[in-house]
């Protein structure tokens, strides 16, 4: 093994760790957790509140979203430098009441307040392809909701806060609608029955994926 390979072998695991950490284990300096089916409606206020509290929120935070097994009452909280911050005490009572009126939620959104840990860099727009043709380009910063006709139905996409996600689809399995939002180069959401792809253009960190 030459010196370069040796150094690379030593360094690689250190470099790989942040890239391969599971999404469930928050890394960096903190994270915001929001249990709501309408994260786009509430995240701007929550992020503004975090900033007001002096917490640094990156301009293009990584936003992840997962389904929860049992529907739960909407809620939110944040952790910063190992400390839980109860945002309900910080002037968000009106938001809190509005969320509770939404009823039970099945979606947990996590905003990573730390350094980016995956995929390519932040992007400006998402590309929508149907049947292999580019049918739309959506700015990620603008809040928008659009439905696209596909085979046997439609796929609805929402954008805003630097990410895009599929909120509804007429397909049977609805894997696309439960997929996490995309925000960085190389990420995508696919609805195979509709031959629909929502993707962030550019080369991501991974060459390809399995699973």
């Amino acid at each position: 093994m030459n010196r370069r390979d040796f150094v690379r072998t030593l360094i690689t695991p250190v470099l790989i760790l942040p890239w391969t950490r599971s999404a469930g284990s928050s890394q960096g300096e903190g994270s915001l957790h929001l249990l709501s089916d309408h994260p786009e409606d509430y995240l701007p206020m929550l992020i503004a509140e975090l900033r007001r509290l002096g917490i640094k929120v990156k301009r293009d935070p990584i936003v992840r979203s997962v389904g929860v097994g049992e529907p739960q009452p909407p809620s939110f909280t944040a952790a910063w430098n190992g400390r839980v911050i109860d945002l309900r005490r910080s002037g968000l009572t009106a938001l809190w009441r509005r969320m509770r009126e939404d009823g039970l939620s099945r979606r947990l959104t996590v905003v990573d307040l730390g350094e980016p840990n995956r995929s390519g860099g932040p992007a400006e727009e998402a590309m929508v392809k149907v049947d292999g043709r580019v049918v739309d380009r959506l700015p990620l910063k603008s809040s928008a909701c659009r439905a696209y006709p596909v085979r046997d139905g439609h796929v609805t996409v929402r954008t805003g806060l630097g990410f895009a996600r599929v909120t509804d689809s007429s397909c049977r399995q609805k894997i696309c609608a439960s997929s996490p939002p995309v925000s960085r180069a190389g990420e995508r959401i696919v609805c195979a029955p509709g031959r629909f792809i929502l993707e962030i253009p550019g080369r991501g960190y991974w060459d390809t994926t399995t699973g």
Partner: protein
Amino acid sequence: MKAKRYLGCLGLALALSPACLGRKDWHSSTLFFFDTVCDLSLNCDAEEYRILEKEIGDVFSRVEGSFAPGVEDFSSSLVVELFGPARQVYLDSGGAFDITVGSLSNAWGFHGGPQHVPSPEQVRAALEHVGMDRVGLENGRLIPPPGMVFDWGGIAKGFGVDLAVKAVLGRGVKNGFINAGGDLYCWGMNPEGKPWRVGIKNPRSEGFFGVLNISGVGAATSGDYQRYFEEAGVRYHHIFDPKTGYPARGKRSVTVVGPETKVCDALSTAVFIHPKPEEFLGKYPEYGAIIVDEKGKYCLLGKTYGASFTQ
């Protein structure tokens, strides 16, 4: 005179252009087969890529048509060819991998009907039609007993990838990958001149929990997180234990890496189902498995192929 000279220069420039020189470049496409998305990335010239893309599409289409549930031609050469390795994994895994679980998929509604938990009687009735050891092979034709329903989903995509890769390698393409819904084969180097970096999806949340740096091998993953439904807070997925008739428990995902994608495909299902996969994986020394258990912890079995990850 001047115009002629310009035309001459233009002609020379065109003749020396990358397209005319047949320069190798990276080309990628996304195709839809097997009810999923298939990605190709090949390093070749543009004209060759156009031909190969069509050829790969034809291979996938042929495999898709041959193994569609309920419409198989049991004398088709592809069906008979794939039955061999499927039966081998069935035998080696003590019946954990079984392509005759179609009646269970139907009973649970994973083949078209509404997904639901069937009654124990319905499960028992479906199990009566399961058992690969009861499939005969005579005169180049499979002979299943009446009522048996095949489910080739645990091996057909990998088989399609193997056939497509064979076609592409036969044309001398030195670098590339073909990925059919997570069943993939990578060879040569990536565009950066390094082994291919394959992300392994986290089975419970967004992102990836591991990376494979591979070349010249295939990989496939079976998991409980894409095709499933929940009832009373319990997750019911589509990977059935042929012995019980219920979704296999104890693991969230299994990724298998090795020389043939169809074997990776079948072994990932077998390892997912078998409670002690170490008992049979040793029969496949060139293959390795990355297992995420029901608590989210991972472990490696067999050959690791440069897998790196953390939790």
